[in-house]
C-alpha cells in the first residue's frame, strides 16, 4: 500500500503547481480532493472495478446473458447439469443446469442493493444519533451513547440470523429491503461514536462560537458549520460499512436466511456450490466464481474507502509516518 502513497506528495500535484506558478486559477477544496483521489492508483482501479461490477448488475438485462433461473438441457433433452466451465457456458452450469455466469452477474444485484442501502441507512442513523449526542451533550448524550453501547455489544451474527428468519417469514419477497433495514439497524453504532467525537471537538472551535455569536440557530450551526467539517469520517466509515454489509448479507444468504431461491445470490451459490464441490462431485467452479465476485466487490469497496480517507483527510491516513 505504501508504494502508492509514497507517490502522493504535495509537490506532485499539477493543480498545485499551476496555482503556485501563475496564481490565476483558485484551488478549491473539491479540486484538491479530486487531485489527491485520482493520484491514488489503487483507489482509481477499485473505482473502475466497482463501476464495472455495479454496471453489470444494473444492466444485466441488456447484456447477452442467459436467463439465470432457466434450467438448460441439450438437444436430446438431457439436462446440462454440472458442465465444466468453457464453450457454451464460460462459468459452467450448476446441478440444475443453470448458467453460472449469468447467476453470478444477477446475484450481484442483491449484494450490491443490500450493501448500498445499508450504507445509506447507517449514514443517516449514525449521523443523526452522533451529532445530536455530540452537539447537545449532557443527558441526551448519556442516554444516546448508552443505547449505542448496547447496540454495539449485541452478538451481531446470532441476532442478525434470528431477525432475518423473522423478517423472511413476515415480509416475503422483499428480502433485499428487509435485510438492508436489519443490517442498517445493527451497524450504525460505530459511525455514531465517530460522529459524536467529531462534534464534541468541533463544537468548541472558534468558528462555531463565531456563528453562535452572529445569532445562528442550533440547526444552522449543526448543518452548515459542523457537519461539513465532519463529512470525511462519515463518508469513509460509510464506505467501509458497505463492505461489511455485503459480507454479512452473503453470510446470511449462505446460512439460508437471505433472498429466496431461485433468485441468485452469491452467498447461497457458494453454499450449494460448496456442498457440490466438497461432496464428491468436485465442481469447484460453483464455489470459485461467486466467491471471486464477492471478494473482488468487497475488496474494491474497501480500497475505495481507503483512497477516500487519504484524499479527504490526508492527516488521518493510517500509514502516516
Amino acid at each position, binding site marked *: *500500500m*505504501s*508504494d502508492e502513497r509514497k507517490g502522493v506528495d504535495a509537490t506532485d500535484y499539477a493543480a498545485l503547481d499551476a496555482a503556485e506558478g501563475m496564481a490565476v486559477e483558485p484551488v478549491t477544496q473539491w479540486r484538491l480532493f479530486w487531485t489527491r483521489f485520482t493520484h491514488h492508483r489503487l483507489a482509481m482501479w477499485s473505482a473502475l472495478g466497482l463501476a464495472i461490477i455495479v454496471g453489470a448488475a444494473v444492466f444485466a438485462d441488456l447484456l447477452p446473458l442467459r436467463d439465470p433461473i432457466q434450467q438448460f438441457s441439450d438437444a436430446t433433452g438431457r439436462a446440462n447439469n454440472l458442465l465444466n466451465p468453457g464453450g457454451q457456458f464460460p462459468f459452467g452450469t450448476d446441478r440444475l443446469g443453470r448458467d453460472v455466469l449469468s447467476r453470478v452477474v444477477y446475484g450481484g444485484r442483491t449484494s450490491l442493493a443490500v450493501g448500498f442501502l445499508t450504507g445509506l441507512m447507517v449514514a443517516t442513523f449514525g449521523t443523526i444519533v452522533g451529532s445530536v449526542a455530540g452537539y447537545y451533550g449532557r443527558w441526551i448524550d448519556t442516554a444516546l451513547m*448508552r443505547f449505542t*453501547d*448496547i447496540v454495539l*455489544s*449485541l*452478538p*451481531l*451474527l*446470532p*441476532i442478525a*440470523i*434470528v*431477525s432475518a*428468519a*423473522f423478517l423472511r*417469514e*413476515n415480509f416475503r419477497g422483499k428480502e433485499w429491503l428487509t435485510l438492508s433495514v436489519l443490517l442498517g439497524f445493527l451497524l450504525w453504532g460505530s459511525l455514531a461514536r465517530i460522529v459524536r467525537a467529531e462534534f464534541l471537538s468541533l463544537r468548541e472551535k472558534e468558528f462555531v462560537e463565531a456563528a453562535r455569536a452572529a445569532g445562528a440557530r442550533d440547526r444552522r450551526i449543526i448543518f452548515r458549520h459542523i457537519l461539513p467539517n465532519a463529512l470525511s469520517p462519515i463518508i469513509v466509515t460509510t464506505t467501509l460499512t458497505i*463492505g461489511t454489509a455485503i*459480507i454479512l448479507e*452473503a*453470510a446470511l444468504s*449462505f*446460512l*439460508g436466511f437471505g433472498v429466496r431461491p431461485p433468485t441468485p445470490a452469491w*452467498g447461497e451459490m*457458494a*453454499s450449494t*456450490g*460448496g456442498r457440490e*464441490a*466438497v461432496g464428491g462431485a*468436485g465442481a*469447484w467452479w460453483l*464455489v470459485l466464481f461467486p*466467491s471471486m465476485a*464477492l*471478494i473482488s466487490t*468487497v*475488496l474494491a*469497496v*474497501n*480500497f475505495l474507502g481507503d483512497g477516500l480517507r487519504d484524499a479527504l483527510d490526508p492527516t488521518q491516513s*493510517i500509514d502516516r509516518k
Partner: protein
Amino acid sequence: MAQYVVRRVVYGMVTVLAVSIITFWLVQNTGADALDRLRGNPRIQPEQIREMSEYFGLDRPPVEQYFTWAKNFVQVWNYPDAWGQSFTGSGPVQERVFDKVLGTLRLMVTALLLALLIGIPLGIFQAIKQYSFLDQTATTASFITFSTPIFVVGIGLQILLALYLERWTGVKFFYTSGMNSVNYSQFSFWAKVGDSVQHLFLPAMSIALISIAAYSRYQRATMLEVLHSDYMRTAKAKGLPRRTVVLKHGLRNALIPIVTLVSLDIAGLLGGAVITESIFGWPGMGRLYIEAIGLNDWPIIMALVVVISFMVVVMNLLADLAYGWLDPRVRYE
C-alpha cells in the same frame, strides 16, 4: 474501580435482558410454532396438541410466557430441567445447550490461540522489517483476508487442504466434517489426539484467518509506534544490544494493546464459529442455533442467544480489567 465493575455488570445485564426480550418477540412472531409440525401429523389427536400447548404454556399471553421463561431460566442450578424441554422432543434444553458449549469453546479457543501465535509474531516481524518483501506481502494478504467472507475461507480450505491434498498425496491430512471419527473411542491416546487435531484444524483455521490478519496489522502498528518512542531511543543510546532493546523494552509495551483487540474480537470469533460449525458439521452452539431456528424451537433459540450474549459480555469485561492490570496508566471511571 469497584464502581466501574458494578456499572459494567449492570450494563452487561441490561444488554443480555434486551437481547432476550428482542429475541423472544422475534421468535414469537416468526410464522408457525414448533407444534405446527405435529398438527400436520394425522396420527396425533387435536386433544394431544392442546395438552402439549398447555404443557409448554403456549396458550398463555406472550408477556406472561416471557416472564415464566425468565423466572425458570435464571434458576440455572435446577439442572437439567431449569430451561424446560425442547419442542422437538430432543430432551431438556439445558442438557442440549451445555453439551454444545464445550464444542464451540474448543473451536474458539483453538482459533484464538492460532490467531495469537501466528498474528502477533507476524506483526512484530513486519514492524522490525518494515517495507521488506515479507511486510508488503503480509499487508496485501491481510487486506484480501479482510474482504473475504469466512465461509469462502472455510470451503476453500476444505477443497484445497482436504479434498485436493488427499487426491494429490493419497494421505488423509484433514477431515471436512465432525469433531471425531466414528470409532474414536477405540483409539489409543495419541491416535485420539491426532484424530482430534485432524478434525479441529480446518474449522479453527477458517475462524482464525481473519483474526490473524487483524492482529498482525494491529501489532505491526503498535510495534512501529513503540519502536519510534523516546524510551526506545534512550535504551539504544545506553548502548544496549538491539536484541534486548527490541525484545525487552519494545515488545513488552507493544503487547499490551492486543488485549483490547482480543476483547473486541470475541463476538467476531463467536459469529465465525456459527458459520464455520455449519460448514464443517461441528457439534457446537452455532449449528444447534441454525437447526433450532429452522424448526422454530424457541426454548433452544432463547437459551443459546442468552448464553452467547452472556459469554460476550463476560469476556469483554474480563479483557477490559486485564488491560487495566497490564497497563497501570489506564484508569477506570
